[in-house]
């Protein structure tokens, strides 16, 4: 178990963090194929957690005026309009250059029966919607690098900031491979999704999942969610939705699997997600070895500077 402290699969994430008999690890499975972009999750999260307003500007790029996850947006519904041909998932020859970016549209030819146009042959307009959230990584870089212990692993396997301990050093912000956690400027401390730790404590599901009208956001035990997600992908593939793929469910990925994972209909970067995130601390043993070698080099240079001549 200890061999996977920094990276790799780690099933007993709460036990590893020191809990004697933790409850099962919980998380989110966000099935974006049924997301309708209503943003009820964003509203419910704000209301329950008392998250401050995050600016009332219009982005002008799409129906998404939240823009990104940050200290004051713990759920973010991405909204993508596309009109170019879709590259199949299994096309190994496709390079990033040939994948299309979200484009500006001419005259939309919206087909009323299939607004999300999800098959490879579809060349019409499609809308993608996805409610993004903190991934509650198995190997959470934010938690690893926090120097005060403000970030901690809960008994449910989630990752939470203690606002009474955080001193606003900001180290977690560039450490997160997903760009989730952020500093609240006027406050100085960092904030992010707690997976409604207070609600979990009393056996309630998180506010966003409770509010989701299409069950795009599903809350539950992680093992159960992973099985359900596998079945859902198979079902979609059988229906011809060959672009459906899971993101963040694999315990062998760079963060040991996400506590909050997704079913996507395009490449992760189209949704603003990193295609192959790796927890920075995976390389930390090597980083420390290089620091050690550099420190010894400096010490040796100091000794050499005084060796030999008197002047």
């Amino acid at each position, binding site marked *: 178990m200890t061999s996977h402290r920094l990276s790799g699969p780690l099933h007993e994430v709460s036990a590893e963090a020191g809990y004697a008999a933790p409850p099962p690890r919980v998380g989110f499975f966000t099935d974006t194929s049924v997301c309708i972009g209503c943003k009820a999750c964003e509203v419910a999260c704000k209301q329950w957690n008392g998250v401050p307003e995050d600016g009332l500007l219009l982005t002008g790029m799409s129906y998404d005026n939240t*823009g990104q996850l940050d200290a004051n947006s713990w759920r973010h519904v991405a909204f993508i309009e596309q009109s170019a041909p879709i590259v199949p998932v299994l096309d190994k020859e496709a390079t990033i250059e040939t994948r299309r970016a979200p484009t500006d549209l001419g005259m939309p030819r919206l087909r009323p029966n299939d607004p999300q146009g999800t098959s490879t042959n579809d060349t019409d307009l499609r809308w993608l919607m996805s409610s993004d959230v903190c991934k509650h990584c198995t190997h959470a870089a934010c938690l690893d690098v926090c120097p*005060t212990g403000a970030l901690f692993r809960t008994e449910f396997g989630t990752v939470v900031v203690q606002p009474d301990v955080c001193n606003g050093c900001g180290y977690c912000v560039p450490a997160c491979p997903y760009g989730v956690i952020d500093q609240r400027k006027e406050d100085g401390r960092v904030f992010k999704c707690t997976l409604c730790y207070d609600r979990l404590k009393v056996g309630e599901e998180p506010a966003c999942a409770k509010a989701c009208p299409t069950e795009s956001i599903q809350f539950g035990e992680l093992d159960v969610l992973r099985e359900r997600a596998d079945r859902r992908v198979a079902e979609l593939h059988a229906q011809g939705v060959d672009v459906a793929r899971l993101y963040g469910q694999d315990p062998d990925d760079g963060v040991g699997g996400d506590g909050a994972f997704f079913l996507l209909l395009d490449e992760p970067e189209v949704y603003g997600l990193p295609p192959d995130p790796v927890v920075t601390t995976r390389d930390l043993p090597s980083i420390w070895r290089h*620091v050690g070698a*550099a*420190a010894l080099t400096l010490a040796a240079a100091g000794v050499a500077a005084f060796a030999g001549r008197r002047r």
Partner: protein
Amino acid sequence: MREPRVVPDVEPASYYGRPILKAPVWKQPDVPLYLYLGGVAGASAVLAEGAALTGRPALERVTRLAAAAGAGLGTVALVHDLGRPERFLNMLRVFKPTSPLSVGSWILAPFGGLAAGAALSEVTGRLPWLGRLAGAGAGLLGPALATYTGALISNTAVPAWHAAYREMPFLFAGSASTAAAGIALIGTPVDEAGPARRLAVVGAGVEIVAAELLLNRLGMVGEPYRQGRPGRFMKTARNLTIAGVATALLGRRSRSLAVAAGASFQAASVLTRFAVFQAGLASAKDPKYTVVPQRERIRERTLAG
């Protein structure tokens, strides 16, 4: 209907061009300045110990003061950068080897105390044996203080920092050596400044080689170190370092040339730290530095089966 494009779109897919990562919220000049000051302090403590052991009182005095001042001012810069400065002591609430900032706090705090004690004893002449003991402790911690900052910034998801984790501690060790040696050159009579001159030459070599390796190995993720303001800073820093070495070697008998060399090293070290800091910011803000290397990784894995 739009006209068909002749040149294919080379920008990788992204969410409306928005960054994937959050850029560091660390402030300028606080953090890059701390990188410089911590380096000066750490390498000065090494020089001070050597000066004490080999009987160079003028060199010892300057370097003891530089070590204490660097640690003191560096700590002020770090505390000022905190979102909640009044909670700075929370840095010593736990010790976490997975957090270079925690490890660094546990290096900086004792170093600061020891360096201040040694400098105080040096200035007042009181308790000389205790001052020597404190100075020796600071000298031992010095190399760690000057290099842990390489781990501090590399242990993030910031592409241009993380990808450079092998070279960064060496770049910082070299930059710290030239800066500390430069201050010694400024404040020491030429007949005691020999070790400072030699440390400057070795430090400059380490710094220049590390920077070259970094730029050659990183590929597209290293672009921010070559482009724009950080690119200009990197180049200028290298030229100032070379100029400093040349001036220091020419001015073995000239105090004014030694001072010019020392000043050149300070400017070079400060510019290096700002260049590295700003290159990191640039790489975090453009999603292509996140997506392209990760896509490449996936492609290689897929081809390997």
